[in-house]
């Protein structure tokens, strides 16, 4: 059991626990949507003065901020006290491709050092990828009315057509950048 839990979790186990998270949030009378926290942050910082999207009482969303805080702590606990190896066993084809692009820690670390180690703070290329990536995720999630948790998991589980359209959009955008833009950036 301990052995199973400290190894990278197989897809069916990860997926099952995510559905439990969905159930717990519905059972407590809430919903599953992580990107809503970004909107709440905008509201907390006075965004309501600039746009109606942020004119709501952010205190009603405190529960979701607590979920987000929990996710931060969960990441800390998992990386420090549960996982016994941080290498991600991606496919050899992906490893070869990434190494050829100059990402030499592919298959050896959890996230590429180029983007997620301290050197990223001072590397123009890395900064640009992180800033653009974050901006598009935040802008797109609110435009689409949800992110992976809201659309791909809870929306599709509820058989909602808008969520299917959004997820198709996620893949159109993701495939385009992955195949045509990333090779130019590395």
């Amino acid at each position, binding site marked *: 059991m301990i052995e199973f839990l400290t190894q990278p979790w*197989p897809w*069916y186990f*990860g*997926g099952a*626990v*995510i559905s439990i998270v969905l*159930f717990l949030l*519905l059972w*407590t*009378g809430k919903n599953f949507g*992580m990107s809503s926290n*970004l909107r709440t942050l905008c509201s907390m910082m006075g*965004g309501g003065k*600039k*746009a*109606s999207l942020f004119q709501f009482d952010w205190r009603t969303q405190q529960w979701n901020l*607590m*979920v987000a*805080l*929990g996710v931060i*702590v*969960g*990441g800390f606990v*998992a990386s420090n006290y*549960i*996982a016994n190896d941080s290498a*991600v066993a*991606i*496919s050899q*084809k*992906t490893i070869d491709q990434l190494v050829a692009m100059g990402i030499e820690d592919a298959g050896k670390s*959890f996230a590429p050092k180029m983007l997620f*180690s301290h050197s*990223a703070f001072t590397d123009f290329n890395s900064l640009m*990828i*992180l800033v*653009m*990536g*974050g*901006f*598009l*995720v*935040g*802008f*797109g*999630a*609110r*435009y*689409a*009315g949800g*992110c992976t948790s809201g659309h791909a998991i809870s929306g599709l589980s*509820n058989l909602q057509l*808008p969520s299917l359209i*959004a*997820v198709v959009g*996620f893949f*159109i955008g*993701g495939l385009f950048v*992955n*195949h045509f833009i990333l090779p130019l950036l590395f």
Partner: protein
Amino acid sequence: MKTVVFFSIGVLFGITLYMSEVSSWFRIYEMFQFDSFHMYGVIGSALFFGSLIIFFIKKLKIKSILEGTPITIAEKEKGWKRYLLGGVIFGCGWALSGACPGPMFSLLGAGFFPIIIVIISATFGTFIYGLVQSKLPH
């Protein structure tokens, strides 16, 4: 009490995102290359169990444990433009940063500190959407 409940749900989610490697930039890259079943398996099995859960919530009219009211799942408004256009923009960002909003927080806790740049710019992106919302097709 409620605070502890939501915090704990978050901890479970954060651990899951890390342990199932959904937070890994590499896994997202690999997913868009169709080089592994892993991410499709995670999302697919979450969907499989999730749709069963929602089916039974509706069938058995399960009430929420904190409020005692029947569980309702808000329908999304009709239309397609905002979902497709917003989805494409989101997908572009997902492929670049390798992190959607849940994994961003999980990565921060796991000590990958440059993710703070992603979180700040995602919040800024949300803010800019709020400013131009009325000018965009929905």
